[in-house]
Every structure is written in C-alpha cells, then in structure tokens.
C-alpha cells in the first residue's frame, strides 16, 4: 500500500464560498444565449415601440402646450395613444411594462427546477459541494439580471426615441425618477420570478408549470381587478342609499383589498413615480379628506415625497417575493432528489 501512503496527504480542498454565483453565471450564460431571450427582446421592443410611435402626436401636443414645464420626458412613459386601447387596458409604456413584467418573470423561471429534474441533472447538481438553496438563489439572480437587461433595452429604446425623434431632453429629476421607477419595476418582476420558481419546484412538468403561471397572470393582471370588484360588490355592496361615511369606509376597504394584487401595487407605485403631479394613491377616507382633495392646488411632488408615497408598495412587493421564495425554498428542501 505504498502508493496509498504517497497519495493521501490530508486534503486541503477548496469549497467554493459562493456556489450561487457559479450557478448564476452558468444560468445567465444559458439565458442570454437562448432563443427565448432574443424572442422576448424583439417582441417586447416592438410591443413597446409601436404604441409609443402611435402616441407621438399626443406627446408632441403636450410638449408644445407645457413647453418648459416639468416631466415632459416622463410623458413618454405614461401617455398612450389616443383611441388605441386593447380591452380597455392601459397601453402606455408604463401600463405595457406592468403587463409584460409578470410574463417575463414566469417565462424565465417556470422550468428552473423541474427542467433540471427532467434532464436528470438535478441529482448531479445537488451532489456538488454547494448548499441546496444556492441552486434556487443562483437561478433567481441569473433570471433577474437577464430580465433587467431586456427591460433596460426597452427603456433605453424609448428614451432614445424621445431624445432623437421628439427632441425631448430629460431633466435630471426626470432621469432620477426613471431610475427609481426602473428599480421598482425590477422588484415587481422579482415577485413573478419568485412565483415562477415556486411553480418550477412544485409542479413537476415544465409545460404544466408554464400553463399555470400563464393562467395566474391572466387572472391577476387582466381580470384581477374585475374579479375582486365583483366579489366585493357581492360581499360589501355600495349603493346610492349607503350613508356617505360608510361608503367611504367601504371604498377604503376596496382599495385595500385591491392592493393585495401585485398588479395594483405596481400600477399605483408606477403612476406616482412617473407622474409628479399625483399626490396620493389613497381614495379619500373621510369627508374631510374628500373636500381637502377637491380643494387641493395642483402641485408637483419632489422625488422624495413621491418615494414616501410608494414606499409601502415597494415593501409589499418585496414581501410578496420573499413569501413566494420561502415557500419554494422549503418545498425544494423537502423534496426527494429523485423525481
């Protein structure tokens, strides 16, 4: 056994300190080289560009009306083409990204774990010296970065369009608002990404996971408001005869319930961030507030005032992400490695 003696020094072996980074690097490379990435990039670019193109007229109008006023640049993102509306949905850039972000999140995550299972690579992967959550964390980060790239190119495309074709030069405060809005949008994507990951852990077939994800997106993003209103209307109806104080209370309740939807959270926060003249997201709760709101002089909020308004929204979005993530994580830890 002399050979054994020679070849057995106490092993001083490197264990990678951040396995999630290795996973993320590999997944990211996979994403940006994938067909899925390019298709989404092109489709989103077109889908965001065309309505914007159609809205050129209105933005021109606005620009000449309020020339010298603030936030014309941001109008690029919040003004949709007149008379162009699909199912009554918001087709401004902002509204469009609010619709597309969930899809992106799901598209980049629905096959994350079940795909590894199907390929038979999962046992090999978890037998490497990384923590099991590194797998999920790495995939989450890689997808988030890839989506950030997609959305960033869309936003830059639009900004470039505004700069070059419309000749609108953004003020610094607008750029700042845009950046904050973008970060908030990424947080919103995070919610759906975490949800997609959860699906990929729980649902063993990628195709099924994609369908469920798509279905939930449809339900929440397109019909969520409608469905909730319907339910609320049945449970706590507001009619003409309702005392006005009570009615206001009910409206308050409705607003709260609607805010359970990430879509509502996002669209409210997004509007406030992109539109400095919006001074609140709340429906007035008391008569006093109502009259106050009516008497209000139109003002423009500074960025930190807007931030203060949307802070709870951002916290709620992050909390939703964490919840989805935690459930997916726990499930993944409990699952058998074998399918």
């Amino acid at each position, binding site marked *: 056994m002399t050979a054994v003696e020679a070849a057995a020094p106490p092993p001083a072996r*490197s264990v990678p300190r951040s396995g999630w980074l*290795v996973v993320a690097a590999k997944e990211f490379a996979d994403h940006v080289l994938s067909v899925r990435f390019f298709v989404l990039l092109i489709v989103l670019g077109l889908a965001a560009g065309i309505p914007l193109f159609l809205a050129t007229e209105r933005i021109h109008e606005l620009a000449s009306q309020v020339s010298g006023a603030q936030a014309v640049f941001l109008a690029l993102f919040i003004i949709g083409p007149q008379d162009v509306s699909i199912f009554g949905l918001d087709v401004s850039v902002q509204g469009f990204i609010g619709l597309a972000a969930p899809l992106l999140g799901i598209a980049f995550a629905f096959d994350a774990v079940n795909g590894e299972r199907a390929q038979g690579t999962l046992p090999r992967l978890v037998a*490497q010296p*990384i*923590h099991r959550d590194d797998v999920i964390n790495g995939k989450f980060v890689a997808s988030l970065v890839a989506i950030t790239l997609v959305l960033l190119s869309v936003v830059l495309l639009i900004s470039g369009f505004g700069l070059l074709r419309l000749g609108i030069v953004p003020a610094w405060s607008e750029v700042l608002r845009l950046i904050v809005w973008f970060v908030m949008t990424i947080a919103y994507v995070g919610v759906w990404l975490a949800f997609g990951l959860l699906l990929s852990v729980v649902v063993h077939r990628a195709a099924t996971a994609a369908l469920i994800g798509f279905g939930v997106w449809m339900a929440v993003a397109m019909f969520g408001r409608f469905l909730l209103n319907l339910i609320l209307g049945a449970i706590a109806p507001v009619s003409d005869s309702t005392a006005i104080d009570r009615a206001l209370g009910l409206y308050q309740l409705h607003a709260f319930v609607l805010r359970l939807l990430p879509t509502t959270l996002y669209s409210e926060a997004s509007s406030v961030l992109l539109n400095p003249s919006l001074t609140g997201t709340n429906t007035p709760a008391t008569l006093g507030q109502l009259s106050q709101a009516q008497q209000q002089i139109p003002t423009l909020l500074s960025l930190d005032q807007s931030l203060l308004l949307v802070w709870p929204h951002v916290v709620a979005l992050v909390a939703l992400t964490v919840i989805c993530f935690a459930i997916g994580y726990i499930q993944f830890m409990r699952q058998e490695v074998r399918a």
Partner: protein
Amino acid sequence: MTEIGEPPIVAAGLTKRYGELVAVDSLDLELRRGEIFGLLGQNGAGKTTTILMLLGLTEPTAGTARVMGLDPARDALRVKRQVGYLPDSVGFYGDLTGRQNLRYTARLNGLRGEEAEGRIDEALGQVGLSHRGDGRADTYSRGMLQRLGIADALIKDPDILILDEPTAAIDPIGVVEILQLLRDLVRERGVTVLLSSHLLTQVQSVCDRVGIFAAGRLIGLGTVSELATRFGNDTGQVEVTFDGEQATEAAERIGPFLAGIPQVEHVEPASAPGAPWRLQVRPASAGRLVREAVLAGAARDGLGLTAIRSSEPSLDDIYRAALLEAGLHRDAVESAGPVGAVA
C-alpha cells in the same frame, strides 16, 4: 498506512421508510479505505436509497451515516467535496458540450482555470471520451453519457467514489476499461469505491467485498469466497477436460473413474467431445485433493487429460442461494411481497 483514522463510510442502523414501505431496513455497514465494495440487489432492493442517504441527499428515517467521519447531512459541503457521485440515471445539459458540462462541475467544486482544464482533460481521457469532449451532450449515445457521468464524478479528484450502476449501457470492452480504471484509481490514489450493480460477473471481477441487499435488508456481506462458504452449501467445482478424440472411445471409462473419487459428489459429463466435465466437490476445500486424484488416475489409465482447474463459485449461484435462503427469490415471492411487486 493501515486503517488510520475513521473508515471512509459507516452506516449504523440506517433506515428509510416511505410511508408503509421500508426501503432500507436498519443497515449496518463499514467500508475500508481503498476497497471496492459492491452493492447487489434486485430492483427496488434499496441500493439507490442507501446511496442517497450516504450522500445526504435523502434524510434517513432512523440511524446514522458517516462519511470520512462526517455527518453527510450536517457537514454536507465537506462530504460532497470529497465524494464523487454517479447517479443511477445520469443526465447532462444537452445544449452544452461534454467539456462545458464538466467545467460547470469543476467550478461548483471550486476548481478554475488551468487546474480545472487539466482535470477535465484527464477525466475525459480516463473514460475514453477525449475525441468527443467538444460535442454537444445531446448528441451523445447512452453509453457515452454514462462515461461522461463517470468523468463527472472524477473531476473533483474524490477520495470516495459512489457509483450507482456505473457500467449500465456501456459496451463490453468499455466495461473492462472502466473496471480497470476503478482498480487503477484504488491502487494509485487510494480511492474507496462503493458501486451498485446488477451485473454479477463484473462485481465478482472487481469488488473486494460485496453486500447482498434484498427488500431493504443486507442479507450477505463479505468477500465472494466468504459468501460462497456461507451460501454455497460448502461445495466447490472442478472442471476437467480430456483430449477430444480419445474422449469418445474412453467416455465409458472416464465417468466411473471420476465418480469414484471420494470427495466428488456429482459428475456432469461433457456436453461435447473436448468440452469440460464438471465435478461437484464437497467439502469446498477438497478441490486440491480432487485435482491430484484426477491427475494420478489419468496418468495411470492413459486418459488424454488436457486441462484441469478449480472453478470459482460464481456470484450468480451465491446470489441466488442467498435470495432463496432469505425467502426473497423472485420465484418464492412472485405472488406476494414488495420485491415481487416492484419487479
């Protein structure tokens, strides 16, 4: 360096239940450093489950596993850094090349750059895939994937190799090469190997010790010859071959002569001229006596003896005997029992 430190793998009372089903039933096992250990067992016997528990990939219902003296559940990273694992149905990322797949594994093990590339080249060479390393993994044949899986387990330069059916889907010459590779790894680097297999001749040819599994229980453990004594009813086999032409005329003399040797219990005549006669010998240790008696007799009677040898008891027979003894042979449990149902 004899038995310094802990044995590489120890299982004590290791148990895994899936609901009602007991997949592994209080397994006690201890592997020695630098040995090749074979796990045998029918489909569903619990081999893969045992392996997963040793790797910390499945939590035992009861009992403990220790790998290199470490708890695979609590010290998962250190255990996994030292253990190379080939899963039973290994898969790779189809859109990456074989080499890229291995590179990912190397990175996950903290290997980078030159060091990683060196190990990848070496591992690809060891499994005979050097020429296809840059092809996409989804263009590989089943056996090539299996070879890549073995290369993948070797990347981290493991102290312990755990291979779940390593030779599945590999061609016969490839099998010989792989088994030789395992022997070399043991000899040169002192690697300890735990492998599971259905192919008994392979296990017999490469394993120092074997464990026979049935319905989650270890029903036999030891070297092949130890198991032969334990399950072989203490019989051995001697094969005698006579010159083809002479054998025909002397056939009537050969039979009684062989049967007349005291320790020979049963004589199976040659199936054709020039084929071996098979003698069953009791006790098993009497093989040498019988051989000498045959030699002497053949010289005396002028029988044209061309070959004589004691044949090893085949693991096949031992395995069947062990399963029969445990009442778990498929014939015995066809109608009832979990093993029959799974198979």
